[in-house]
Structure formats: structure tokens, C-alpha cells
């Protein structure tokens, strides 16, 4: 047995651990399901902190806004200040509740207008822990019927798809991630082409020939060809067009505000879904209008 000098032991350990991780990377590239257990453990261990952090942060913010931020008043008008503070506090609370109610009402309206489409609301409780991928963590998972590859939307448009489902949480790959993509088409010209992310705020539409006419501001909607998202959901609007070789370089501004997501809807089906159009959906709701106006 060859003895390793003590000053080289850490180098040997470094080499050994790097080799192990490289092998682990190689195994994952061949078999994507590998490594799931450690993900389950880690997400299971950290998601309660994230959940607590989200709610705790909300509580601190609410407390700060509702109490501490209202301390800067004069002593002379103590009584008035108290009444005023109480009113302000109530207003702030009501405004916060109203804003939340608006968001939830939009989600509810959207759900009601598409009652035949199984979907569930979920709250965003975390994001990916690095810049290598653009993901969010939802507070609902397998126990709520959420499975891998289900589509995630807001009334404004497409958000992404579920890439991992845990018992009480699920991870969603945002449309802006480099690995992400959605079957899409231009609403006016009906030209179909996949839209994908680039790791930046804007998306890119990949295969539109230079000969085809595309207008700035034209809406982009789902084509249903990816069999994850139903047809006619808003994806975004054309923000930039440049000639390319052999295809145009088209950049899309996402319809959903992917940088400030608080609540989302998960489409609870792995089969292709059909969204109702405005007529069959009854009362036209503003969020749904964007999704259906481009019907042929």
C-alpha cells in the first residue's frame, strides 16, 4: 500500500470528490430520473423554511407597514394620530386584501369560465436556489393531484410547466428558462413556431421564415401542438423582429409577469385540453378574452 503524504491528502480528497460528481453528472445525463431521492429530501427539508419565510416575510411586512411605519406623527395630535393610524391601518389592510382579492377573483373568474378544464390554484413559495435555472416552487404537490409535465398558467398567460412534483410542493420551470419551450403561433397570421426561453426576460420565436410577415406588437398564443397547453392561451407579444438566416429573430415579451408571480393555476391533466371560447364560456372575463379572441 502506497502511503499518501499528509499534505497531499486534501488534494486526493478533492480529486476523488470531483471525479464522483463528474460520474454523477454523467449518470444523470443518461438517466434523467437519477438523483430524485436527494431532491425529494432537500426540497422536503427546505420547503417548510421557504413556506415559513414567505408567510413570515408577509407578516413582518404587514406589521411594518401597519404599525411601525405609522409612528412618525407629532405628539400634539396624539388622539387624532391614533384615530388616523387606526384608519390608515384599516385602509392598508383593506387595500392589501382588495389587491389579493382582485388577484384571486381573476383566478376564480378564469377557473369558472373554464369550468370544464381541471385546474387548481397554488401559491408561489420559493424560487430556484441559483441562476443556472429559472424555476419557482409551489405550495401544492402530488397530494393535490399535481404531476410532472402539467402546464402552469395565470389568467394573463402561460407561466411554464411542472418539472418535479413532491408530496406537498412542486417545482415549475418558467417559460424564460433556456430549457423551456411551448408550442405557439402568431394570433393574426396563424404562423406556428415553438417559443422558448433564453434565460432572459424576453422569449424567442425560433422558426419563422424571413418571407413571412410579422408585426411588432402582434399577439402570440399557444398552438396546442405541445400537448401540454390548450390552444389560444396568451404567450406574449412580439417585442422585436430582426432578419436572420434562414429564420427571423423574433423576441417575445411574456404575457404573464414571470418576475412577480404570487398565485398561479396548474392545469390538472396530462392529456391535451380544450379551453372554452368566449361564447361557450358564458360571460366574457377580461383574462379569458386574451386567450380566446384569436380563435379562427
Amino acid at each position, binding site marked *: 500500500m502506497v502511503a499518501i503524504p499528509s499534505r497531499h491528502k486534501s488534494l486526493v480528497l478533492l480529486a476523488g470528490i470531483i471525479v464522483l*460528481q*463528474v460520474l454523477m453528472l454523467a449518470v444523470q445525463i443518461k438517466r434523467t430520473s437519477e438523483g430524485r431521492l436527494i431532491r425529494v429530501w432537500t426540497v422536503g427539508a*427546505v420547503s417548510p423554511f421557504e413556506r415559513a419565510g414567505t408567510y413570515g416575510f408577509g407578516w413582518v411586512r404587514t406589521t411594518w407597514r401597519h404599525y411601525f411605519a405609522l409612528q412618525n406623527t407629532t405628539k400634539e395630535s396624539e388622539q387624532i394620530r391614533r384615530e388616523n393610524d387606526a384608519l390608515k391601518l384599516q385602509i392598508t389592510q383593506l387595500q392589501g386584501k382588495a389587491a389579493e382579492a382582485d388577484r384571486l377573483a381573476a383566478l376564480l373568474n378564469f377557473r369558472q369560465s373554464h369550468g370544464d378544464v381541471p385546474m387548481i390554484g397554488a401559491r408561489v413559495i420559493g424560487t430556484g436556489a441559483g441562476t443556472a435555472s429559472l424555476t419557482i416552487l409551489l405550495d401544492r404537490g402530488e397530494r393535490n393531484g399535481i404531476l410532472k409535465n402539467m402546464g402552469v398558467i395565470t389568467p394573463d398567460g402561460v407561466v411554464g410547466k411542472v418539472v418535479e412534483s413532491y408530496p406537498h410542493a412542486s417545482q415549475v420551470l418558467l417559460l424564460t428558462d433556456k430549457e423551456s419551450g411551448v408550442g405557439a403561433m402568431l394570433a393574426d397570421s396563424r404562423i406556428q413556431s415553438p417559443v422558448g426561453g433564453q434565460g432572459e426576460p424576453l422569449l424567442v420565436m425560433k422558426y419563422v421564415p424571413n418571407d413571412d410577415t410579422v408585426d411588432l406588437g402582434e399577439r402570440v398564443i399557444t398552438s396546442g401542438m405541445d400537448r401540454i397547453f390548450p390552444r389560444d392561451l396568451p404567450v406574449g407579444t412580439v417585442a422585436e423582429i430582426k432578419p436572420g438566416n434562414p429564420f427571423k429573430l423574433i423576441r417575445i415579451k411574456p404575457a404573464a409577469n414571470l418576475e412577480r408571480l404570487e398565485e398561479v393555476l396548474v392545469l390538472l391533466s396530462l392529456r391535451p385540453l380544450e379551453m372554452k371560447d368566449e361564447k361557450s364560456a358564458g360571460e366574457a372575463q377580461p383574462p379569458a378574452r386574451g386567450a380566446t379572441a384569436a380563435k379562427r
Partner: protein
Amino acid sequence: MNGAFDIRGESHIEVHKFRAGAIIIATLLALAIQASFPIHFARFAVLDLPLLVTVYFGLSRRNPSTGLLLGTVIGLLQDSLSGPTVPLGLYGIAKTIIGYLASSIGARLDTEHPAARFALTGAFFVAHQGLLVLTRRILLAQPEPWFNTHLVIAALVNALVAVFLFLLLDRLRKN
């Protein structure tokens, strides 16, 4: 506090010990904050708190084996929290090497001065990004740009935050 960048013999550098559970709690807190705060502040994503924690404990413990093992654990946990599109080992490899380098440098240089911490953290951030790009290009065949202006800004921001964060983490040391 001693002057920065004084090259000394290993035996003259003080090895810092921490209160029980300090490293584990700091690590979990860094990961949880990294995974939670960008929801409320999108610009927070420019920070890499797990990297800063790896660098800090590497520089303080000054034991290459401990540093690289801590880097491995933090990196793999970060991989696990980054979703299935990030293979386990991407951050793991980068942080293993950074943990090793930090603890090796910590064993040779005085890294207590804020200027030294600023410079070292900035350099480690750039090296960490370089290792991520290298791993993506060579092992995962994913084309990634090497450097851009965003990297420079992110390195400066992380280095600045590190100066204050490290002062905070110094309080976890045993006297």
C-alpha cells in the same frame, strides 16, 4: 485585526472555531433565503449566498479537507433546490473547488481585513462562474458565454455584501 495579504507561515494563522451548529444553521439559512427572497426582490437573485457561506467558512476554518467537503455539501444542496434541469453536481463541483481554494488560501494569507475579503470574494465569484461555464461547456455540451458585464457587476455586489456578511458571521466564532 492584522494587515491584509501578509504572507505568513501556516502555523501562525489562527484557525477559527464556531459555536455548535453554527455552520449547519448558516448554510441552511443561506439556502432558504436564496430560494425565497427573489420572489419579493427579483434583483436579489444576483447574490449567491451559498457561495459566500462556502467562502467564509473555507477562509475561517483554513482546512482544505473541511473546506472542500463543506463546498460539496452546499453545492449539492443548491443543485437539489435548483430543479431537475440543473444536474446534481453542477454547483457541487464548482463549490467543492471554491471551498478547497478558499481554505487553502485562508491557511496562507491573513483574510480578516475587509479589503482582503472584498478582493478574494470577488475573485472567487468570478472563478465560481467560470467553473460553472466550464462544466456546462465540457460535460453538458451547453454553450454558455464566458464573461459579460453582468458578471462583473454581480461579482462586485457579492464582494461588497460579503464584507458585511462576514462581519456578521464573525460573531458566530468561539472566543
